[in-house]
């Protein structure tokens, strides 16, 4: 058991380091550095000497490997550098932006789980083929709708035409509703697709036949037998779902003019504020890694087979195996 935990921890750290390296390569090794991006072509009032001084201040005059080593060393001590535009530490900027994003992301997650889960359960439980097909037709719709547009439609209906919820801002519970709904739509679609596939698979298993043969009713078969087994594979994509929520926040927070990680991302990309963008990419990777770590550690408690398998074959983590199945799952139905 301890070995399992240690192996997962080691993998998580490795992924974080690799994510740091990838973001460094994208943001620093590609042509253009923060200083020339900011003062580059359009402004002529900055002399080359001043540019050089600025580069020296940010350590950009050094060779890439040296920069990489310095930045990585600082990052290990928790220092992600400071914003070139706002002149404040990146870590503080991100920390400030977490609570409002966490509020809508958590609300959206719960909503998506309820709606997506209910949709998958009803679609597989019902005897009416028409209802089942109609319900299974909803997720592709949810994936196809641009969320920035859907958010604006919600504002139009529920803030302007029928003033129920505020259109913008971050004041109280009612301001969370519309952003959370916007954020929840693609996530709910993803969960519904995953879970309905997984449920359909479970319902074809022999243990379901056995339960039915013993006279267990359809609802009990569904919830006690099929759903409990079907939710395990769905659990492994939690990390991806959370990542999608974080990415969705960029658009949602822009639409509703809310503060948060997404808004910080959008403004930093607009200002080409490289240290902040790198900090956010790293933050997203860290969230993904932490969620997956939590899932990996919870998994053996829910499904004892995992530990036995991993001890026997030292197999890949559950999440690594689940990842490839996700793409076709979002593609299909």
């Amino acid at each position, binding site marked *: 058991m301890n070995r399992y935990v240690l192996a997962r921890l080691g993998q998580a750290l490795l992924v974080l380091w690799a*994510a740091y390296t990838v973001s460094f390569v994208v943001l620093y090794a590609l042509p253009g550095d923060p200083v020339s991006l900011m003062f580059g072509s359009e402004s002529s009032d900055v002399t080359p000497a001043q540019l050089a001084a600025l580069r020296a201040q940010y350590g950009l005059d050094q060779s890439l490997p040296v920069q990489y080593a310095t930045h990585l060393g600082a990052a290990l001590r928790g220092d992600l550098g400071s914003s070139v535009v706002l002149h404040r530490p990146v870590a503080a900027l991100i920390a400030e932006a977490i609570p409002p994003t966490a509020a809508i992301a958590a609300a959206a997650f719960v909503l998506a789980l309820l709606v997506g889960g209910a949709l998958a359960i009803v679609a597989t439980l019902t005897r009416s083929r028409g209802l089942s*097909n109609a319900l299974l037709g909803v997720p592709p*719709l949810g994936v196809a709708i641009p969320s920035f*547009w859907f958010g604006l439609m919600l504002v139009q209906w529920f803030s302007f035409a029928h003033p129920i919820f505020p259109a913008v801002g971050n004041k109280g519970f009612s301001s969370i509703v519309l952003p959370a709904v916007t954020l929840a739509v693609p996530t709910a679609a993803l969960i519904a697709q995953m879970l309905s596939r997984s449920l359909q698979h479970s319902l074809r298993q022999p243990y379901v036949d056995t339960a039915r043969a013993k006279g267990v009713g359809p609802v009990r078969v569904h919830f006690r037998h099929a759903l409990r087994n079907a939710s395990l594979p769905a659990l492994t994509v939690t*990390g991806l779902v959370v990542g999608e929520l974080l990415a969705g926040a960029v*658009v949602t927070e822009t639409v509703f003019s809310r503060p948060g990680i997404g808004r910080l991302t959008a403004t930093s*990309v607009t200002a080409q504020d490289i240290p902040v963008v790198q900090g956010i990419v790293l933050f997203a*990777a860290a969230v993904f890694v932490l969620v997956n770590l939590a899932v990996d550690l919870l998994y053996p408690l829910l499904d004892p087979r995992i530990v036995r398998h991993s001890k026997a074959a030292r197999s890949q983590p559950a999440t690594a195996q689940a990842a*490839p199945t996700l793409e076709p799952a979002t593609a299909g139905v």
Partner: protein
Amino acid sequence: MTELLDDVTATSKDRFADALRERQDEQTRGRLAWLLDILRKPGLLVASVWLALILAAAFAPQLLAPGDPLVGVPADKLQAPSSAHWFGTDQIGRDLYTRVVHGTHLTLEAALVAVGVGLLVGAAVGLLAGFVGGVFDDVVMRIIDVLLSIPGLLLSLALITALGFGTIKVAIAVGLASVATVSRIMRSEVLRVRSSVYVEAAHAGGSRWWSVLFQHVLPNASGPVIVLAALQLGAAILAVSALSFLGFGAPPPAPEWGALVSGGRDYLRTSWWLTTLPGLTIALTVLAAGRISRALDRHEGNDA
């Protein structure tokens, strides 16, 4: 819109029968099967017609909307949809329908470039990783795993920060962000094909590795990747228009779809058509692309 969803009415039994029938008839009917398949399913037909219209709008916008997308008649500003202005007019009297039609070129071109970049780079990486194997494969797949741990939109945004703004840069960023997904699928296909008897036979028969790679492995492994391409087109249109909505695409007067939705934001209270209709166009196009990719998927015999 319900017609577009028609596809899902095929039950698993029907699907199996369909797949069986298609496979039996494939050799005799060839390309004809594809046409008949379209005619048999109204949802697929609607999706194909819609996508054909979108393609026409992209490559010959003057046919569908002869007006100028950048010049408006100030007297006609903010008019609701009518027979004169199908999608209404914007704040400086430009015809929104004309702008949507002419913007198709920008958005679709960006989406196609994104899919092309993603497919080319992704397929090359996946092909090499699967074919070479060993340590190379291990290292490449670990990097792919890391890329998958960063949400696609954030990866695109990081690339845009480094590359700069503009339609083509956005397209390249979206394409590169999808490389991980494509290469993963390509690699698993290559691994499947590589272990097949005919590849073994080709090796045993003395074929050089590159001829095995290009004559046997690539053609047989590319089926699922082509299906993925159709699906990626929808995803790329969504990603490109989201980034253009955020303001990273072409600069203002250009009628990119995402930028059109964003431009209508300030008039949301009074002029619903300015956001609703361009957004609806995006949604329908993505739906149509998804519908067609599912049909391709079935054609490939990859029924789930």
